[in-house]
């Protein structure tokens, strides 16, 4: 299709516009290019060149100080067989799933409730959004105390009802649940407000029609609300995937005191060492810039893969 207009166009351009026109054209538009240039210059210096450089780096060995040494594909070969990296993928995905699915469920329920509540809607929205305003560092410090083994609130509650205490920040599942709880707390309100915006585009007549047809609230939600909310759901899921799979600050701050070797080690047994934590550890603790770059590309691949899976899953349901 593209070839037909392409064949037709060149002669027209040749006859109508003389050879000097391009310079004149640029002169005519220069102020527009100047206006968008700050972003593109910054992007060139701190975005594009770095990305290219990190690709180049991943084929080398470099400690950041000495001279670079060509390593071919050996960094990637090592990455594929690196059990620690695979462990970090598993850790990241488990934390992401533990946080994202409850979060989406709770956000949707909250949004539906907000949508039907007539009074105090704005006050509720502000209150639910508040967790998202706070910094991860401050929140992680607070959650560290809530989940503390010796004096944490969760264990005090368990003790009060006669259950065994859990060494939350010392066991593989405890660590993951603590991190996921923090993320769920911080993002439920934010996504509820996004869902609410989606809900408000659903025309009221549809609910009216469903009610006349005798549909209950659950049926109405499944048959009317959910299908119309699908674009919003896709948006929320993709954003949660891209950010959730790159979690760093939550485990880093939460586990920095339980870690014995480095601030990026992700707690006992590396049970909270996400992919990005592993990247920081390899790069800035071990000064292994070449391998760090390979890890970064590995993370990128995992994130893109998951985003495509998300997209496909929701698209396919659309066709059905």
């Amino acid at each position, binding site marked *: 299709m593209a070839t037909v207009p392409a064949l037709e166009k060149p002669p027209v351009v040749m006859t109508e516009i003389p050879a000097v026109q391009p310079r004149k054209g640029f002169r005519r538009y220069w102020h527009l290019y100047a206006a968008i240039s700050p972003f593109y210059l910054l992007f060139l210096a701190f975005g594009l060149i770095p990305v290219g450089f990190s690709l180049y780096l991943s084929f080398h060995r470099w400690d950041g100080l000495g001279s670079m040494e060509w390593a071919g594909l050996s960094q990637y070969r090592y990455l594929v067989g690196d059990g620690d990296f695979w462990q970090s993928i598993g850790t990241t995905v488990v934390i992401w799933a533990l946080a994202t699915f409850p979060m989406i469920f709770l956000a949707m329920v909250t949004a539906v409730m907000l949508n039907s509540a007539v009074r105090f809607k704005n006050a509720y929205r502000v*209150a639910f959004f508040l967790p998202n305003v706070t910094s991860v560092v401050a929140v992680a*410090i*607070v959650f560290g105390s809530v989940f503390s083994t010796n004096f944490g609130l969760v264990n005090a509650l368990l003790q009060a009802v006669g259950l065994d205490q859990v060494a939350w920040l010392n066991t593989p599942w405890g660590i993951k649940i603590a991190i996921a709880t923090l993320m769920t707390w911080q993002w439920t309100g934010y996504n509820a407000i996004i869902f609410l915006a*989606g809900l408000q585009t659903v025309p009221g007549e549809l609910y009216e029609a469903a009610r006349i047809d005798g549909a209950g609230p659950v049926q109405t939600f499944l048959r009317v609300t959910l299908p119309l909310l699908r674009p919003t759901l896709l948006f929320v899921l993709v954003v949660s995937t891209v950010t959730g799979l790159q979690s760093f600050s939550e485990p880093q701050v939460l586990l920095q005191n339980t870690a014995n070797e480095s601030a990026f080690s992700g707690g006992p047994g590396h049970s909270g060492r996400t992919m990005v934590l592993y990247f920081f550890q390899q790069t800035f603790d071990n000064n292994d810039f070449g391998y760090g770059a390979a890890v970064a590309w590995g*993370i990128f691949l995992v994130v893109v893969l998951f985003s495509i899976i998300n997209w496909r899953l929701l698209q396919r349901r659309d066709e059905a």
Partner: protein
Amino acid sequence: MASIHGLKPSRAGIRGSRRRALALHASLITGVLLSAFPFYWAVVMSTHTSSEIFSYPPKLLPGTHFPDNVRSLFDAVDFFGSMANSLLVATTVTFLVLLFDSLAAFVFAKFAFPGKRLLFGLLMLIFMVPMQLQAIPQFVIMARLGWIGSMTALIVPAAANAFGIFWMRQYMKSAIHDELLDASRIDGANFLRQYWHVALPVVRPGLAFLAIFTFMGQWNDYAWPLIALTDPDNVTLQVALSQLNGTHGTTDYGMVMTGALLALVPLLIVFAIGARQIIGDLGKGAIK
């Protein structure tokens, strides 16, 4: 609701809907309490001594040791120094982002020029590039420039961003009317005058959203400052908090929690000013 049918609502119906409304507000308030609880918990912890915190049963009400904790906090870290750094970075970046993003957004929203589609496509692609891919080379470049350890390393790369340009473009497309631009052109206004006198006054609410969003994002930024600020005595508030948690987190909980609480104050002020704006526009961006 029942009156939409033209039916007279029965007494039982009213009682039922009232009960439903009560249940609704009860669940919503439970959610609000869960959202607010960690804030309350931070207040409780920051008003007790360590020995009180370590005791069982846990203290559930605020105590009296807040002033002591504040004093030991100020002894342990340069709290106001790092807060000044955070303020410097967040306000400078916000100002630059507003200027550069709105200029670029204005161009993409209202003008045609060769290469526009390509450049805008590139912008969308940049959205996807994760921070880790840039972190190492950025660190190396900035080390060469001598910026590592200074706030410049945080300000310069953040001075314009793809999200802001994209968001402002969407906003400007509908907010600025073409007739207005045409009229100003006939009056002889050049590009900068159009930007300043026609575009900016109309998009002020959009700028407010972008400003609050950018400020909060910069204030809370942690990963890159942690790497780039190599001098432990010259850091932003988030890095200082993390240092504090790292050195005193297992011993003086009350003091660390006081730091976390005080670090929230400027942010809560900004949020209080712009809550309505940010919550309203957040939804708009998602469903467009």
